């Protein structure tokens, strides 16, 4: 029977973070929560990579900053994680920016409302009739109106003046 080492605990923790993130992305119905779940999954993956280069009792992989007789941890995973963190932060920033724009146009970040709106939008733009939603009877399911201020989504970044958010429409209808 293998005893549970520190690495074992961290390994399980890292995999757990990835699973939590995946489940969170699958079950949340709010786009911002999905983004947070993604962040959790990413940190799990980063933890896993750092762990792959970990040596017990080793020092940081920086030349000249540690006792040369002690072993160093493997520097490659550390480099990889740095790169992965930078990429991850960039993608998350882009995602938040997109969320802002989506909220300005549709006035909601609720996945279901957005999906209905988008189906209608895509269908209108293409000039065809939208498919009936699977979880709503065809015909009667009016969407709350898009705030008037938000009409016309095009334009440059940040030229719109101060952001005033429309009233919260995250409440689910019965």
């Amino acid at each position, binding site marked *: 029977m293998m005893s549970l080492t520190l690495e074992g605990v961290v390994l399980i923790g890292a995999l757990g973070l990835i699973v939590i993130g995946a489940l969170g992305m699958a079950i949340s119905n709010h786009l911002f929560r999905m983004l947070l779940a993604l962040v959790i999954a990413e940190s799990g993956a980063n933890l896993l990579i750092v762990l792959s280069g970990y040596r017990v009792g080793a020092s940081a992989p920086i030349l000249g900053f540690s006792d040369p007789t002690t072993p160093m941890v493997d520097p490659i995973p550390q480099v990889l994680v740095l790169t992965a963190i930078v990429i991850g932060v960039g993608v998350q920033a882009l995602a938040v920016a997109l969320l802002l724009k*989506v909220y300005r146009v549709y006035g909601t970040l609720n996945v279901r409302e957005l999906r209905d709106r988008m189906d209608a939008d895509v269908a209108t733009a293409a000039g065809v009739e939208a498919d009936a939603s699977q979880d709503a009877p065809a015909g009667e399911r009016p969407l709350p109106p898009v705030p008037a201020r938000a009409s016309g989504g*095009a334009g440059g970044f940040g030229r719109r003046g101060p952001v005033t958010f429309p009233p919260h429409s995250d409440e689910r209808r019965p």
Partner: protein
Amino acid sequence: MIPDIALPNLFVAQPGQLVLPVVLPLLAAFLMQPLARVSTALARGLGPLVLILSAWITAQLWIQLGDAPFTLAIGGFAPPLGILFYADGIALLFALAVPVFALLFWPGSGSGGDAVAGSGPDSNQADRDQAARRDALVLLLVAATTGLALSGDLFNLYVFYELAAVASFGLVALSGTGRAQVATFRYLMISAFGSVLALVGIAILYMQTGTLNLGQIAQLAPETLNNPIGSAAFALMLIGFGVKAELFPVNTWVPEVYAGAPARVSALLAGLVSKLAVLVIVRLLVLIFPQPEAAQMLLVLGVLGVLTGEFAAWRAKDFPRMLAFSSIGQLGIVFVAFSIGGEIGLLAGLAVALHHLIVKSALFGLAVRWNGSLEALSGAARTSPLGAALFVLFALSLVGVPPLPGFWAKLTVLIGLAERGTPLDMTALMVILLVTAVEASYLFRVAIRLYQDNPDPVAPHARRDLGVAALLGAVLVAATLGLRPVADVLGAGAAQLGDRAGYIETVFPSHVAGKDRP
């Protein structure tokens, strides 16, 4: 290796110039914004200039160094340590296709059809900024996809993949409509989660082998990765890199993005970027994961992609979404072909992939004007007879009507499946035959509608849109006439692509390793 590239002699390409097709577009992408502040004309000319230069350098290298694969250690660090570019015939072919297709679908010149308003010469400062931003993103996409074709290092593949992903998010979102932004966000979530999985796969590979160099992993793979852990790593990386390649469970972003993005961007994403992601997956499959479970996984996912894509395309009611779903189906066939393995499988996969690159790009080129519902296309042959004729040509080739290249590509897949002949293969064969009928049904339905009588047909195509499609159609016809040489080139490429020992030998030449020395 600065002396090598300091003064590029453009008529005698050296291996050191291999970095230029990646570095130049990257540099130009970041110079684009400041340059646009100084001079609009300069910024507008920069992109095409850089693309032509990249294509020229790649073509030179391809002609001169054609059959012999070579490597380039960036910064002069020898292979297992440094970053490595690996170029063989296929890598150079794809690296050449990237700038050429980017040029064909270059967004500037304002021929209309883009959702970005007012890209004409006399538009205001905001529009010019927007145009510079868009050009920069296309150049970024070019740099990243060229890097994907050439990179011989696992983590570099990941970085270039992410760069391509971010550039394509930007391109899709730039069209400015709300639905494009929601589509981009969902694409971003799926893609970013795929990247997390790919990263975990890379971590597993690193734990198992202790290296990130593809050549060295290939050397170690038979002992260290031919086990369930290796298969798990392959599954993770397959799902991760499969997001861009429109692999079955992670392709739900495809229809929304292609319906929301400008048709040019869809052409680049569906034609080019998906093929580069496929190339990455095939390299992983050939070099690192020789176990049969990996190929089976690819086969099953490919078959599911074929089925879902083609039936969804049959149901689609508008032109871009029909093309998007049919793209999923076609890439499913590509995966089925590559899963056969061996030379015939690789040949079939390359043939289907390149055929799809040409045909689907051209069809999205036509969709620049026909981006509405299929109903509205009735009678369009009257206003753009050439466009309708080209559509029929591409549809025939896509379905696989005999003299056209699409037929030979599909036939090679079927022969490969029949030769291996396990029950799973025979199922795949049946599925491909079945969906060919479905494909024919929905494509010919559109063709018939195009030639219907309608007093009020849609607006005709601009000349430039038709020009691109006509050019690609000419390529298709030329390939039909010169089938033998094309097949020979592809066969040589497939042999090189499948040559694992050759890859390892090129990365770690044995005469350097000290065996031959006294």
